[in-house]
């Protein structure tokens, strides 16, 4: 909490307070302006629609993830996580080509620059949030209940809707909250794929603060954004508490999906997530009218557009991502513990506090740090590590939302039973809590790493030393000067980013899978 207070609440409150001292007239202006009202409305409805579409598209994949472990599972999870790190400008270009291709080949309406394009792109970026959070939670359910329902004569549809679905709700709500906030504060996707009249609160904050130099209007909008996010998180966490279920962890095998269903879902996922990736890879390999690896080799050479080589930008990104992951996991797990074990008021406080950074504009956080952390002992705004800290802030909500549902479902009687059987408290932690939340931590760590690798907004609003630029910024700068050579390098760097995150997810999955397996084998109560 000290961490969040220092690096998030203090800066955000400082910037809001300093910009709003001119009075509260801003609110009247905002609500009278049809444009601002339009932005509020569009932000709310596109985030709702994005969340709904993401759930529809990604829940089938969650079913596959729940039933796939080991190496295949790790690869599948890596694939769904990759979109997270792809630079918006690159994905936007790929989607545009896709929409135009579908328009000219199949006569479908061209979706480019429509709200639908924005919503589809949000589903692409958030696919992993739903698929992985729900999938892993699903695999950890006590599947005996389904067995019993089936023995009592229910068909498989009834079993799913009456027995499985209600128990999946906490994870679904958690994933939906993250997806909603992500879409709610979306900036790049809206600018690249959206129509020109489609503004969100986030793009309006940028326009007022940066183009107009009107900090009062922008702070007013930022405050409205914060309040909206607070209300949303409150509703969500209330629902999540109400639906939370505990499990006794009596392991029984999950009912397998029909082979055809599983193949169908896997195919859909590959096509939906893979097509933009494919466009990117094709571009990165084309060189001199043919194909080759020259664009990748060029990443080791310095071009004038970058203060350092693309590869050392990638090195910076990996360093930042490692720091951000450790910080986000530490802070996130402490928050999650407090949310689950503390009394209601404290728990609520942590719940809200840990979710807010995802719902607050990057401009607000960046400028807040700029004017708040400027004097000793907190004169940190130009330190290089403030960048990974800002990344960690965005990642904390993911950690909290991945770990809380896992912690909540540990049934107290499970620990009591273990104690009765003579297990020491530390052994209970090690053999019940750790294996149970290990999977949650693995997902959370993967997300934190990916978020840091792909983060663009907050980073660009912080003053940084030129040679500490991150890989997404390098991609953006390479695309800032005309010429196919530079564009080829930008694509190659995007592919390398994707590979880096895939490799991380696979490694963390294999590790957590092995840990969970090993302790399950030794566990006195596992089956």
């Amino acid at each position, binding site marked *: 909490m000290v961490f969040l207070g220092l690096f998030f609440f203090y800066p955000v409150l400082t910037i809001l307070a300093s910009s709003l001292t001119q009075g509260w007239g801003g609110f009247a202006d905002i609500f009278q302006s049809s444009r601002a009202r339009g932005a509020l409305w569009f932000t709310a409805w596109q985030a709702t629609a994005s969340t709904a579409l993401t759930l529809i598209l990604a829940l089938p994949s969650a079913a596959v993830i729940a039933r796939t472990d080991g190496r295949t599972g790790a690869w599948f999870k890596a694939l769904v996580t990759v979109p997270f790190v792809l630079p918006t*400008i690159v994905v*936007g*270009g790929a989607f*545009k*080509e896709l929409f135009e291709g579908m328009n000219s080949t199949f006569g479908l309406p061209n979706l480019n620059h429509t709200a639908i394009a924005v919503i589809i792109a949000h589903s692409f970026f958030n696919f992993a949030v739903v698929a992985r959070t729900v999938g892993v939670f699903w695999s950890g359910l006590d599947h005996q209940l389904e067995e019993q329902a089936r023995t009592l004569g229910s068909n498989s549809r009834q079993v799913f809707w009456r027995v499985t679905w209600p128990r999946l709700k906490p994870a679904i709500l958690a994933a939906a909250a993250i997806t909603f906030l992500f879409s709610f504060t979306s900036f790049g996707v809206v*600018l*690249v794929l959206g129509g*020109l*009249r489609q503004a969100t609160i986030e*793009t309006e904050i940028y326009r007022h603060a*940066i*183009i107009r*130099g009107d*900090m009062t209007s922008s702070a007013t909008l930022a405050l409205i954004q914060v309040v909206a996010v607070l209300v949303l998180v409150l509703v969500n966490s209330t629902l999540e508490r109400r639906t939370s279920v505990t499990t006794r962890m009596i392991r029984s095998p999950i009912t397998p999906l029909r082979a055809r269903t599983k193949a169908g879902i896997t195919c859909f996922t590959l096509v939906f997530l893979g097509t933009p990736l494919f466009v990117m890879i094709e571009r990165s390999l084309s060189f*001199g*009218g043919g194909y080759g690896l020259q664009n990748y080799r060029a990443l080791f050479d310095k071009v*004038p*557009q*970058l203060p350092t080589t693309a590869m*050392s930008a990638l*090195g910076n990104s990996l360093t930042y991502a490692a720091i951000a992951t*450790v*910080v986000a*996991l*530490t802070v996130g*797990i*402490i928050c999650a*513990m407090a949310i689950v074990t503390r009394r209601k008021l404290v728990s609520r406080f942590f719940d809200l506090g840990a979710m807010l950074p995802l719902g607050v504009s990057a401009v607000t956080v960046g*400028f807040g740090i*700029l*004017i708040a952390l*400027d004097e000793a002992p907190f004169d*940190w*705004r*130009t*330190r290089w*590590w403030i960048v990974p800290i800002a990344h960690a802030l965005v990642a904390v909500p993911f950690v909290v939302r991945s770990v809380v549902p896992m912690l909540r479902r540990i049934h107290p009687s499970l620990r009591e039973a273990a104690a009765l059987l003579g297990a020491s*408290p*530390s052994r209970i*932690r090690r053999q019940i809590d*750790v294996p149970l939340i290990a999977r949650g931590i693995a997902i959370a760590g993967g997300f934190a790493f990916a978020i840091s690798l792909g983060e663009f907004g907050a980073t*660009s*609003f*912080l*003053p940084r*030393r*030129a*040679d*500490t630029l991150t890989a997404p*910024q390098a991609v*953006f700068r390479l*695309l800032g*000067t*005309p*010429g*196919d*050579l*530079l*564009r*080829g390098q930008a694509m190659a760097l995007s592919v390398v980013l994707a590979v880096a995150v895939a490799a991380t997810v696979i490694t963390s999955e294999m590790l957590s899978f092995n840990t969970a397996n090993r302790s399950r084998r030794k566990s006195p109560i596992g089956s």
Partner: protein
Amino acid sequence: MPIRSVLLVSLCIAVGALAACASDTSAPDGANEELENVQSVALTLVTHDSFAISEGVFEAFFEQTGIRVEVLTSGDVGSLVAQTILSSDNPVGDVVFGVDNTFMQRVLDRSILEPYKTTELVNVPERFQLDSTNRLTPIDYGDVCVNYWIDALNGPPPVALMDLVLPEFSGSLVVQNPETSSPGMAFLLATIAGTPDWEQFWTQLKANSVAVTNSWESAYYSEFIAGGGSRPMVVSYASSPVAEVIYADPPVDVPPTGVLLDSCFRQIEFAGILSGTDHPKEARSLIDFLLSPTFQNEIPMNMFMYPVSQKAELPEEFVKHSQLTENPLSLDPAEIEDKRKAWTERWVEIVLD
């Protein structure tokens, strides 16, 4: 070990690492070595993300003067201006570089810069010296112009700004939204300065099926023919054809693109000393250095802008492939700041509604 202790330990490690970082200003690659010269002063130059300069340039300055320069970059021009104003009570650096003529009035309206008239200004033509109070010193310039893909045009290229509304160029041009993109803003200003009635011009341009994107990247790489789009004309820079030669794949001898010289709006970038610097004397030396041939000669190939100093030499590629107009379009910076809101709102009504 209970999980809480594990967490406690890892928290301690994290805090420890932070504390260690806090006392160490160096980058992750740890480039900062002990300063050989204890007397040396370190200056911070704050600039935008498009800033780039060859390695060794600031080292040359250090050898001349004993002053080290650390470069901090932050966002685009608009973001740099907003940050400079926001943090003016306690500036992040000593010198700011990259404020342009479309934003300069916003900075000059506040007393956040120190006046300094460098002797190097004798080498700078008067048309670049827009600030009579000498708080902003011109360093480089460039033009925002309509570019066209030569082979994709059916007939001769346009020669006048007003040609863009002719039926033969229907559906040809892609521009950027002035509310989100600085070249987009510059082109709007070009039409205000260069057509008899800019509102009518945009009404006609819209009837001629102009496309609009939110960023230069989307326009150049998605809509313009260079990136696989279908439109043969785009709002870009006068120096873009030079980049199209230098970064061509496969290599080419002549640029595939040309520039509509009548559409060019001049952008001038300035540097200034931030009030409250602890090293005003050294900051003035840095301004001198930014106008010296050592720095000025580096500008074209690194930033694709043009040096303001007459002593600077253009690289061969620029001499060969770049076209600059004698009479670029421009507007008074004070008028731009004053009318920006009204102009962009009117533009939105005409073009987007």
